[in-house]
């Protein structure tokens, strides 16, 4: 190694770490509202609904914005089909989905969470525009 390089190693390490911390901070405290659809939902219930999603491991089979499992469909915009559509699947299951015994309150919280995911935009790849620089946007 070139001898003078060795002192640049800790300096580069610290500089990159500092840049990362600043970037992270800007994300943690970003107050912008990213919603592309006029959908109303209960803010408190959607927070609890996120925990219901986790408690029953919905992500193992389903996706939000294409992120999650592959056994079932993406559920980002499923709330557009209404509460009873979701409720029917949860209560009756399908060939690949067991019956989940959610309480009425949990089902309602989960539905509010899915209304919040729907409000943020569309997960359908057909709804994205391709830009000249290779980027995509809704």
């Amino acid at each position, binding site marked *: *190694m*070139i001898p003078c*390089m*060795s002192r640049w*190693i800790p300096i*580069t*390490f610290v500089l*990159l*770490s500092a840049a*990362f911390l600043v*970037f*992270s901070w800007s*994300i*943690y405290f*970003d107050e912008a*509202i*990213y919603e*592309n659809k006029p959908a109303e939902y209960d*803010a408190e219930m*959607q*927070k609890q609904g*996120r*925990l219901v999603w*986790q*408690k*029953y*491991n919905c*992500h*193992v*089979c389903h*996706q*939000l*914005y*294409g*992120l999650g*499992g*592959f*056994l*079932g*469909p993406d559920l980002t915009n499923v709330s557009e089909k209404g509460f009873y559509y979701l409720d029917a699947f949860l209560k009756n299951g399908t*060939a*690949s*989905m*067991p019956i989940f015994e959610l309480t009425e309150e949990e089902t309602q919280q989960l539905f509010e*969470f899915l209304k*919040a995911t729907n*409000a*943020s*935009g569309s*997960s*359908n*790849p*057909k709804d*994205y525009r*391709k830009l000249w620089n*290779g*980027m*995509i*946007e*809704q």
Partner: protein
Amino acid sequence: MKKLNANTGNLFLITALVLFMASVVFGFLGSLIYRYPEFLRDSIGLSGLRPMHVTAAIFWILLAATGAVYRSLEEIAKQQNYKLLQFIHWALWIVAIIGIYYAYFTGNFGGREYWEYPPEFAIIIGLAWMLFLIVFILRVRAIKKWPVYIWMWLTGIVYFLFIFIENYLWVIPYFRESFIKDMVIQWKATGSIVGAFNMLVYGTAFYVMERISKQANTGFNNWVFALFFLSFFNMLFNWGHHLYLVPTNPTIHYVGYIVSMTEWVFFIKILYNWKSQVTEAEAYYHYFPYRFLLAANFWLFFNLTIALFMSVPVINLYMHGTHFITAHAMGTTIGINSMILLAAVFYFLLPERKSHQSRWLKIGFWGAQVSLFVFLMALMAMGVVKSLWFFEAPQAPFAEMMERSRGWIVLFIISGLSLMGSFLLLGLYLIITSFRQKAVSLKKKLEP
């Protein structure tokens, strides 16, 4: 007690191997559900099997890398220090693993993707990791000039801890107020934490490579340091490519896009080094640590090619949400991380070349490579089917799209079975042979 903590590095390596074997068994059982959806549906189901598989796979990587770091530091310092702290470190992991699998088998979840256990167990893992950091610093502080792998291990340990905490910000309600912000933080953490444990794995690869080829200079090579900083830069900032479809601040998308493109340097460097590697392979081919490192290099090339395409947003649009992503994740964890860690496990548990002259090892090695190739091809074919379905009009129901993949799913299951068999063969050979060697050396010591 004295015997147990005699070599904590080996305890970590053996525990990791058991988790590795558990991971492939759970993974195979989970794969059956894609073809036979009613299999275990009303008992453990995919919602239980997938967390069991993923947790075992992640813990295999973390524990094998930890064991390799401890064993490497022993070789560098030529002594074993802080044995008790290391043993407590291992014991904390054992408590966490038993607790987590008890929770899984009793249907108690609550965590997020890849970390589905109840978040209370994260406290034990966090404590174990803090202890790892303390032991690591205590052990390396006497080394004046650090080779690249020590920098990589330090980076991996420090950043894993930071990102692991970030991964649990969701327990604070403030971070769940905005669904988009919550999702960005989740995938920021997921993307970066993989980079953090890759630092531990790649650091181990450099160390083992240096020891095999006896080129002590590798750890201080300028190119190696340049690549380390490029990996570090990518670990910190390239995670945005997971979120191209998520409608958030465009800066996140552009930073991810631009930083991901710097990975072309790795791609070109691999091609540039290819010829010298072939020459080296002739010298070390029959030594399994080297053979696994060579295999990891091939899979690195394979996965980097997919990753580079996925990092371009307009191409990502067609691959995102499809099995291409699974192929990439599986290719990385099995093809790169597991091959490097198996090289390390062979190097530390069965260092003598005479232990490597086995037909079973050859079958296991080649079985794993060929099965993995077919396995990834089947996943990518399923990805193509789903991608075409995304853009067809009118769009067929989801179940019909799954039915179109039927043949590929069968291939995915058969290759998965063969992959499981090959890895079980390798894992059992390693465990049985290393215990047998220990027993022989103990017997020799006891003989008058």
